[in-house]
């Protein structure tokens, strides 16, 4: 499923190959395929239709340069259109001079409470604010405890009234409290509610009226399907919210709901949730999301995820070693452990443009590292730091010790040496060189 969209697009683009211009005739079938692909990515039916209509309009009559294929041109038009639709730049939170008040709302289980904690941490660190987390979910079992625990985790002040069942009243009291407590930020976590529950929707409307928040944020699960239309519309009707938070994007959903919501209520997506942990919050980048929905491989997030996971100190040490030609199997082993922390191999590889479709049916074994680890474990410390001493008899011993054939050991050592060479080569250009390489890959598609 993950590769679904890019595959479909590729098929669709085949019909365009070798034509000089994009014409109505050769584009019709392609647009139909794209529409299907978007729907498979959970973009709302109508949104997908109006989107492809717009892309077609822009594409027709465009001269196809000899250097790029029509498919690529169309991809670019689509990506630009998508990114534009989703807002061309990321939007930050409105910070008031005095008290910034943020109201958090959404469906059950979408991630409101978790986001409230994350936002407190984010604004504390990035805007030096002093947050007060307010528990206004008086219904869900242990909702108050959950927010209280999170507030401790992020070191934020916490407000609740365990015997008060009136969230409107609690939110008013919280504002009063924030003033005596010297908070300049309050974040109000509310109960999850379905958008057709009139009573509950009235309640959130009342809370908004009582608080008059600086920002009302609508929290929505990135995996949401066609229902995104109804939910976003209904919540927007009652709340006229200021921004959207897209959670659980660490999953492998395409996240078409982002496009749906954007086009239905025209409100910016401000944040994305990328893990269960309090650090798992990021601002929203429309172009990355566009790539994700289109399935062109989110190179940037791949690079960033790698950076996030690699311990900086460790990375610096390794760089030094590479520079001094001292990169050994020990370091290699550590790197493998780091890579393993990043998640499933198939996932990671799938993010690289052009690679996606090739691995769809191939089962990338997440234990692929096991035999490598076994081989390294069978080396002596001296061999690990000085790979050049690995002669025939040593290799034989390692093969036996690790339960591999000698040729497997040879292969690994050969690959390792090639890799160290390449790493040394890449040191000069650093990240940009890697990006160039990846970009070239994308061009070639």
């Amino acid at each position, binding site marked *: *499923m*993950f590769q679904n969209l890019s595959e479909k697009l590729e098929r669709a683009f085949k019909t365009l190959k070798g034509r000089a211009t994009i014409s109505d005739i050769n584009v019709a079938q392609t647009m139909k395929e794209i529409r*299907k692909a978007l*729907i*498979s*990515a*959970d973009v*709302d*039916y109508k949104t997908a239709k109006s989107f492809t209509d717009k892309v077609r309009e822009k594409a027709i009559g465009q001269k196809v340069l000899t250097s790029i294929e029509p498919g690529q041109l169309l991809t670019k038009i689509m990506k630009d259109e998508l990114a534009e639709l989703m807002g061309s730049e990321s939007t930050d939170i409105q910070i008031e001079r005095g008290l910034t008040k943020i109201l958090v709302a959404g*469906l*059950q*289980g*979408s*991630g409101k409470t978790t986001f409230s904690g994350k936002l407190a941490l984010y604004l504390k660190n990035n805007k030096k604010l002093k947050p007060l987390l307010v528990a206004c979910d008086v*219904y*869900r*079992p*242990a*909702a108050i*405890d*959950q*927010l*209280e*625990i*999170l507030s401790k*985790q992020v070191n934020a002040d916490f407000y609740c009234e365990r015997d008060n069942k009136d969230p409107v009243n609690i939110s008013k009291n919280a504002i009063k409290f924030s003033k005596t407590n010297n908070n300049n930020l309050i974040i109000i976590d509310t109960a999850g509610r*379905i*958008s*057709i529950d009139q009573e509950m929707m009235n309640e959130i409307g009342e809370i908004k009226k009582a608080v008059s928040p600086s920002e009302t944020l609508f929290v929505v*699960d990135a*995996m*949401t*399907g*066609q*229902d995104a239309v*109804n*939910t976003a519309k*209904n919540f927007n009707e009652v709340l006229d919210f200021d921004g959207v938070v897209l959670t*659980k994007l*660490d*999953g*492998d*959903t*395409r996240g*078409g*709901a982002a496009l749906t919501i954007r086009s239905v209520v025209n409100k910016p997506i401000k944040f994305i949730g990328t893990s*269960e942990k309090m650090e798992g919050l990021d601002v929203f980048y429309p172009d990355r999301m566009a790539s994700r929905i289109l399935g062109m491989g989110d190179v940037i997030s791949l690079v960033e995820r790698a950076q996030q996971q690699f311990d900086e100190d460790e990375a610096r040490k390794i760089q030094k070693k590479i520079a001094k030609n001292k990169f050994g199997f020990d370091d290699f082993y550590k790197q493998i452990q780091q890579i393993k922390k990043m*998640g*499933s191999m198939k*996932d990671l590889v799938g993010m690289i443009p052009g690679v996606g479709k090739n691995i769809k049916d191939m089962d990338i074994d*997440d234990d692929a590292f096991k035999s490598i680890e076994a081989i390294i474990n069978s080396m002596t410390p001296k061999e690990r730091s000085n790979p050049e001493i690995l002669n025939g008899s040593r290799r034989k011993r390692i093969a036996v010790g690790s339960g591999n054939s000698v040729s497997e050991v040879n292969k690994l050592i050969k690959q390792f040496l090639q890799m160290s060479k390449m790493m040394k080569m890449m040191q000069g250009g650093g990240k940009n060189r890697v990006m160039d390489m990846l970009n070239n890959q994308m061009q070639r598609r």
Partner: protein
Amino acid sequence: MNFFKKLKESLTGKKTEDSGTSNQDTEKKSAEVLKKGLEKTKNSFFGNFSKSLVGKSKISDQELDSIEETLLKSDIGIETSLKIIDGLENRVRKDKFIHTNEIYDFLKDEIKNLLLQNKKDYSFSDEKPYVIMVVGINGVGKTTTIGKLAHQFNKNNLSVTIGAADTFRAAAIDQLEVWSNRTNAKLIKQKMGSDPASVCFDTLKSAKSNDSDVVIIDTAGRLHNNVNLMNELTKIKKVMSKVSINAPHEVILVLDATTGQNAIEQAKQFSKATEVDCIALTKLDGTAKGGIAIGISDQLNIPIKYIGLGETVNDLQLFDKDKFVDTLFSNEN
């Protein structure tokens, strides 16, 4: 009533002669809950069809398109929708004049054919307690569904022990504590952050020594593409079989009806890690149509067993595909 009879009854929803009248009342009430919950679904489904088909006796391309739209908008997904429409087109080729009503019936049949209902009869061994493990991604409604299940068992005079194996999420244990108090269930827990497999081990041991009828294990929400956490699930499952050979006897995957096509991947990956027996589809009381259930039944052969229609103990229903599809298309309001 003997243990297995009772257990079977509460698991399959089938009534035996000795069930009291109070059961009939709840039956009635739950039918209402179901109807109310599905009303929204039905209205939008039926609404769309009425618009596109009323007053015409033939099915045109345009109408087929509109049916396609209706199906896709219900999260049934491209593949499954095309399958349904293919069938419809075949029918049209054979019989060019189809009245609106016939199309409804035909569509109903098509969808019913794709939907699997949990029919498995429980082949009980002598193993007691009956162990149920509940899995799923974050926030879909696992803990709530467990509370509802515990309530069902409790109503049928079965003693329940719940294992708090979500040791990760903030206040997950406190949440479960509230539910176990509401439903007279015994809760086995350890500290936050402790090893979930060890909690399960404790739970089964304790349930055995207390002669509990049913054990329900709550697990932490986890995304299906997180390899480490999926492996953890496999490990938890394995540990249980050390206490009771065939445990868990049932693995329920909880899916959120608002989820789109990603639910299929969820079902795939969780099945791989834990051999899922059946699905509980939650939050059908909202505006979501839950069409993913059809796609999952069709493509992965995992039956739907329960549906969630709200946040209280009574809001759990056995999935009934005839009722489900009939309610989608029924004329009465």
